[in-house]
């Protein structure tokens, strides 16, 4: 039996990081626009991609922000009646731009986060974050001596992948169950995690368990840092929308044969994300620098030029594209 098969009875599934997910959506968009021959076709492709992203990763702010930006470009081109060929080229340019930008801002945020990984520190991380791994890589390049604790991060157990990847960089890694975080917190100097979304009040939506870890860190006066490029900031929360958090079921905890061994009326509730309040977060590392969560409105004002940022709700944008593409 392969390791994956052995792990499948524990519900091991390769949950991708939110950065990877955004890249994947950009690839899908590129593929989708290849065959379009009308505005309507493009609208349908765009809409199905948004619907799917909202269904699969409803809390992922980056994918919404990126798709909004691309949608705005499409709207402008629809309005000025550009040819379908021109629109296709423009969308492809946009996806390339975002692919590069996401990589760049993740790297820049990671460099800023890596400054916090001081020589000799023991770091705890949870789940699997592209930007956290990048920060560890940067620290490694600088020859910093670090040690790591990684939680297995149920449901999904993608912590196993994180542990492997950090160990391959040559760092000493200890893998622990999610329940052992408080037991080991006294040995930890710093918690470093990624984010699915950052709300404007500085609350961080991340893999379930992150808020518990942050609470434990707070109790032990251990600092908590989040790596999150500004594209992960959830601007929708400005409208007072709550970040919708998806839940799964037993499928993320075990294989069907394990379920068969449990009582017939066995039920599991499996949240995938949780919200860490800003009070438990010491700093958010972005491409623009390290900020206290309370400083986020200030950054947003700087980035978007106004407070509150003047942004279009993605649903409204989709409606507008629907209207503009009719009869074309």
């Amino acid at each position, binding site marked *: 039996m392969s390791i994956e098969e052995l792990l499948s009875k524990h519900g091991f599934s390769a949950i991708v990081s939110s950065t990877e997910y955004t890249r994947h959506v950009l690839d899908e968009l590129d593929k989708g626009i290849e065959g379009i021959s009308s505005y309507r076709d493009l609208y349908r492709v765009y809409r199905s991609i948004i619907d799917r992203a909202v269904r699969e990763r409803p809390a992922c702010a980056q994918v919404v922000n990126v798709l909004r930006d691309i949608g705005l470009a499409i709207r402008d081109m629809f309005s000025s009646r550009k040819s379908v060929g021109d629109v296709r080229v423009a969308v492809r340019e946009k996806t390339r731009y975002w692919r590069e930008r996401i990589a760049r801002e993740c790297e820049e945020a990671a460099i800023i986060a890596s400054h916090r990984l001081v020589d000799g520190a023991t770091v705890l991380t949870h789940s699997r974050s592209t930007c956290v791994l990048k920060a560890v890589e940067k620290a490694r390049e600088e020859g910093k001596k670090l040690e790591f604790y990684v939680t297995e991060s149920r449901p999904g157990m993608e912590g196993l992948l994180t542990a492997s990847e950090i160990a391959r960089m040559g*760092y000493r890694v200890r893998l622990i169950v999610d329940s052992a975080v*408080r037991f080991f917190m006294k040995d930890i100097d710093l918690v470093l995690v990624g984010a699915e979304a950052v709300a404007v009040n500085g609350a961080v939506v991340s893999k379930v368990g992150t808020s*518990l870890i942050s609470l434990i860190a707070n109790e032990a006066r251990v600092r908590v840092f989040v790596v999150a490029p500004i594209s992960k900031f959830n601007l929708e929360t400005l409208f007072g929308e709550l970040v919708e958090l998806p839940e799964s079921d037993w499928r993320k905890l075990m294989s069907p044969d394990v379920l068969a061994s449990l*009582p017939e009326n*066995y039920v*599991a*509730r499996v949240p995938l994300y949780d919200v860490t309040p800003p009070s438990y977060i010491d700093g958010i590392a972005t491409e623009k620098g390290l900020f206290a969560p309370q400083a986020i409105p200030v950054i947003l004002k700087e980035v978007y030029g106004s407070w509150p940022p003047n942004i279009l709700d993605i649903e409204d944008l989709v409606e507008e594209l629907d209207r503009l593409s009719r009869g074309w």
Partner: protein
Amino acid sequence: MEIPAKVLEIADGIKAMRIRGAGKIARSAAEALKIAALEYSGPNDEKVFRKYMAHVADLLISTRPTAVSLPNAVYYVMYRLMTSSGSVKELRETVARVADQFIVESLEAVRRIGEIGARRIKYGSTILTHCHSTAAVSVIVTAYKMGRIERVYSTETRPFYQGRITMKHLLEAGVPAVQIPDSAVRYIMHEVDHVVVGADTVTSNGAVVNKIGTSQVALAAHEARVRVFVAAETYKFSPATVIGELVPIEFRPPEEIVPREWIEANPGVEVLNPSFDVTPPEYIDAIITEKGVIPPQAAILVLMDYFGWALSKMRHGEAKIRFEDTIE
């Protein structure tokens, strides 16, 4: 002097972990003392009999050096022998009677704890429990039958998934129970009214040693102002902690967390598997024993009431009592 084969068999069963669970171990030890007394075949000399019993007592205690219920059961029986006088025949009967008394009380304790604890549960409550504890399940099921409980969340409890055993017992009793991953404890806490858990050991200052993860469940409850109840028989209170003896925390094999194949494929990752953690008394609202509900701060009084004799012995010597040394 020859020790009866049945006594050796029990001692070996405890040592080899064929006899498991704090309650079973304690009752088996009492049973072994009873058998030893009834099958005593030495000379009709009170001193020889006392020495023989002391030898058996020491042997039993040595089988599991970290267990708490085991020495407590032995102290319970041996104390009555040491404070009794009479012929060998009378002493043998005393041991048998006291051992039986311990066994009955211990079996009765779970039911008593269920009744006492259930009265502490508010009507319409949602309960969260961690791991599997017979005493905690007794409280929950009793309270459910009284119509006080609407829903129970049970954590999976990695690495061994004892939460699945809890689910089985609760579902069999008709209790609406839902499993959650250990990482979701803080996420779910705002729906919870009471946390009810068991204990492996209760220390003299009211700290509770229990399955890894208990302390972070209690912390999350404390943050949310949710009450935490610990269901624990009095024989789980540890006299040795009064003299500052630490409760040793066992690290179990890494294969309990991930398959050996994964460990071999990841030589740079060390898998750490502590099995217990310590919940400080500040996070515990009440300890439910078969003798009544106590605040954790009153643990010392329980110890003085039930094991006062052992305490005074320990204060003058080692953390563990050697009964043979007490014989002239």
